[in-house]
């Protein structure tokens, strides 16, 4: 019971930590756009920078 909550909190904070750290690391250069945006709809990826701001219907 207690270990479950502790482990969950640990992995959650690990993820948050790495996410924030990664987000604050600047990108080194303009990455070449190799992903085919049109067919990228097949994968609505939460962190896919090509897709994330695109919304549908609203």
């Amino acid at each position: 019971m207690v270990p479950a909550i502790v482990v969950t909190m640990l992995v959650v904070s690990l993820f948050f930590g790495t996410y924030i750290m990664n987000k604050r690391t600047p990108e080194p250069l303009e990455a070449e756009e190799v992903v085919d945006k049109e067919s990228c709809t097949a994968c609505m990826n939460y962190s896919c920078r090509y897709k994330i701001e695109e919304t549908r219907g609203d």
Partner: protein
Amino acid sequence: MAQKQTAKKGKRKKDLHALAVFTRGIIRENSLFVLLLGMCPALAVTSSLETGFGMGLLVIFVLTLSNIVVSLIRKAIPEEIRIPAYIVVIATFVTIVGLLTEAFAPALHESLGIFIPLIVVNCLIMERANNFASKNNVVLSAIDGIGVALGFMLALMLIGGTREFLATGALAYGVYLPLPLEGSIINAGLTLFQMEVFVGPAGGFIVIGFWLAVFKAFELYNKRKKKEARDRWIEKKKKEAAERKRRKAMESAGGSA
């Protein structure tokens, strides 16, 4: 042009009422056939009508709850950690749903197997959390969740039903879920023509490809119809304008004369 369109759409959405939010996800913006979201489960767990139905139920559950929670906490979450917070919410609900399925529908749990934990990476849920629930109130988000997931479920059932029928010549239900109709079978008596390949992986790809093509064909047909109607309308207006112009010209000619 494109910008103008989205702006227009956005304006229209403001006064969308609940019913529109609900029905939108079912057909017009069906997440699987129109937006191609959640391909993996659509291929893997649709070897029969009922597994598709079961998976759909789980997705309804997860999507609705995650939409509600995301919408509830949307104001408390700082922008920077919004997305990871959604992931945690979704993963929690998926774990809970997995446990509940194992307890109350063990056969379904067995047959969906690895695809229950994989709901967590189903793009559909993240997309709804990010694009709808994070911007709308709780009630609307819940309705949206149910609607979109229902559309997804219907799509899964369509694929599952097709595959099962082609493969076995019959539709069975009550096998995986604790339905009151246990063991019932709709048998078309086509067992002679069963094609086993359709329950297999290859069949999954082919059936989805087929249905996508059908939906696209409909879409193209509708588009063409609309375009034709619009063309006719434009033609008509042009004619009317030309007529008016001619009359005006005649009138002015007559007036001067």
